[in-house]
């Protein structure tokens, strides 16, 4: 039978404690291309696999663009483009510009948050190799998985399999691409 290329090796756990320990040990053993899967966020897990996110910076930039954009949206017509002398009232009446500026700050920050999150997640991803493991369906219910990817520098199928088996999983599967 022709061998399918391998995406990685995945271990299934039935509690968060084992998954966390496994993730920490995998990181200590030098594996860097790995990912963990759970039905709810597990505290400390993303740090254990060495992950930090850029999202707050993206949201801040989005908010600032919204703020500046919103203010300039009102400033330009009222002060620069089409100033209208209405009873001598000031053209640059910035207090009256605040509500829209505020709302656009929030809108741009929120949009950049959500779209930024999905973009960084590379979602939507209709296909992913981990779905080839039948029991992975339980990752969205009550089981926890750790997958070490084949593109990791230290990857060797048999070594990784025995490494994971030593961490008290329920089962270990090879994930085809």
């Amino acid at each position, binding site marked *: 039978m022709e061998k399918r290329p391998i995406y990685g090796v995945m271990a299934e756990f039935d509690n968060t404690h084992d998954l966390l320990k496994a993730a920490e040990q995998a990181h200590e053993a030098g594996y860097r291309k790995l990912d963990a899967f759970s039905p709810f966020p597990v505290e400390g*897990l993303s740090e254990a696999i060495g992950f930090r996110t850029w999202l707050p910076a993206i949201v801040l930039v989005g908010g600032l663009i919204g703020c500046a954009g919103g203010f300039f949206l009102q400033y330009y017509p009222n002060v620069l483009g089409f100033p209208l002398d209405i009873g001598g009232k000031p053209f640059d009446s910035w207090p009256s510009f605040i509500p829209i500026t505020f709302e*656009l700050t929030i809108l741009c920050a929120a949009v950049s948050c959500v779209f930024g999150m999905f973009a960084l997640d590379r979602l939507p991803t209709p296909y992913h190799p981990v779905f080839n493991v039948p029991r992975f369906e339980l*990752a969205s219910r*009550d089981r926890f998985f750790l997958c070490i990817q084949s593109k990791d520098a230290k990857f060797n199928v048999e070594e990784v399999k025995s490494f994971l088996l030593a961490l008290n999983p329920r089962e270990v599967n090879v994930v085809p691409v």
Partner: protein
Amino acid sequence: MDPVDPVIEDKPVFIAPAGDFIGPGHSYGSVTDAVSNIALGKTPKGWFGGIAIGLILLMALNYGLTYVFFVGVGKFGINIPVAWGFAIVNFVWWIGIGHAGTLISAFLLLMRQKWRTSINRFAEAMTIFAVMCAGIFPLVHMGRPWLFFWLLPYPDTMGMWPQFRSPLVWDVFAVSTYFTVSLLFWYTGLVPDLATLRDKAKGKAAKVIYGILSMGWRGSAKHWKRHEVASLLLAGIATPLVLSVHTVVSFDFTVAIVPGWHSTIFPPYFVAGAIYSGFAMVIMLGIPMRKWYHLEDFITVRHLNNMGKLLLATGMIVTYSYGIETFMAFYSADKFERYAMMNRLTGPYAPLYWLLVATNIVIPMTFLWSHRVRTSPVALFLMATSAQIGMWLERFVIVVVSLQRDYMPSAWGMYYPTHTDWEVLLGSIGLFLTLFYIFARFLPTIAMSEMRDLVHKTAEEAGVIAAE
């Protein structure tokens, strides 16, 4: 992918005891199943009855709105001086109702209140549907609704810009922002639960639809981290949004010089009233839902108690606002302000004002102090209904009674709602019900991933599993 059916073990690894906000005997799997079975299982017969009512009322909306679009806003009972009637009353009422959902989702998340977990999903859905209902009215109340887009700053051939200094334009930005942010926040929270439904669905169509909607979510720890960060950031953004949106709506009134409107108390008064009516709606939706879908273990008696307390607290703020408004009207020695207040108390609409006081203040503030009332689903539901009616009457009194008699007695008038007014009001309730019933049938009404987290924390606290 091989069509292998995995063996799903039903034995959970541990069972959590009762927690502060969850019934006993639950595991990650049981909370998942309790909620997903509603979406994936057979439609209960009662659902058909409920959506039938919603759809019938929706037809009334259809009829009323078509009439108004074809014939004109004169079909409403508006006139000079009362140029704003039910349409604006309904707008403010619906937007106000929406505020509690965002408060629960966003503000209670920031305050780390665990009891928000089982209610935030349907509360946020309520917000989105309420804003959709509210959005009809600014469109419909215009004399020339086909020109609504003139409110937006689009590049046009006339070289015209909207009046950015007008609260009506601020409303456009505030309400659209509110709708967009609520929808995004709700959808972000939904994605992991939609993935659960995709994984559990048996039918091909269900799997494909939930699969598309869940965007391939696989529960990766990296994605969860971003998701948590995003939820906190969105919560931080949405909290000032709650305050600002109803403030901007109140500005519709405060910038006018009509006595009874031109008051700086309106922003906090409106926001408190909004949260009051919003929580009333969450209670009115949550109590039947927990009964009919057997979710008493998740929306517990403690939840009812907490929501009742919030109803009481915001109701007290509203009560204080009424009192101080009345006091300031007389203390100001402004004869127009004084008359506006006297008109509310003794004028032609006085029975509605006193009904407002009874339903908004007297009934809830008397009974909500009682723990027994707050923890009894029937009693709490009645209190919430009373508050809901009272808040609609409050909007009516503010809009109509202030307009009908302002400075010049020769300009005084009366407002009588027409059948079109009633059709559109009841129809908007029908739209809301229809949307909510569809949501309750096909989407997870409780945030499953967050409930699993709650089970986890409950088990950790009880020592059933080792703390990390």
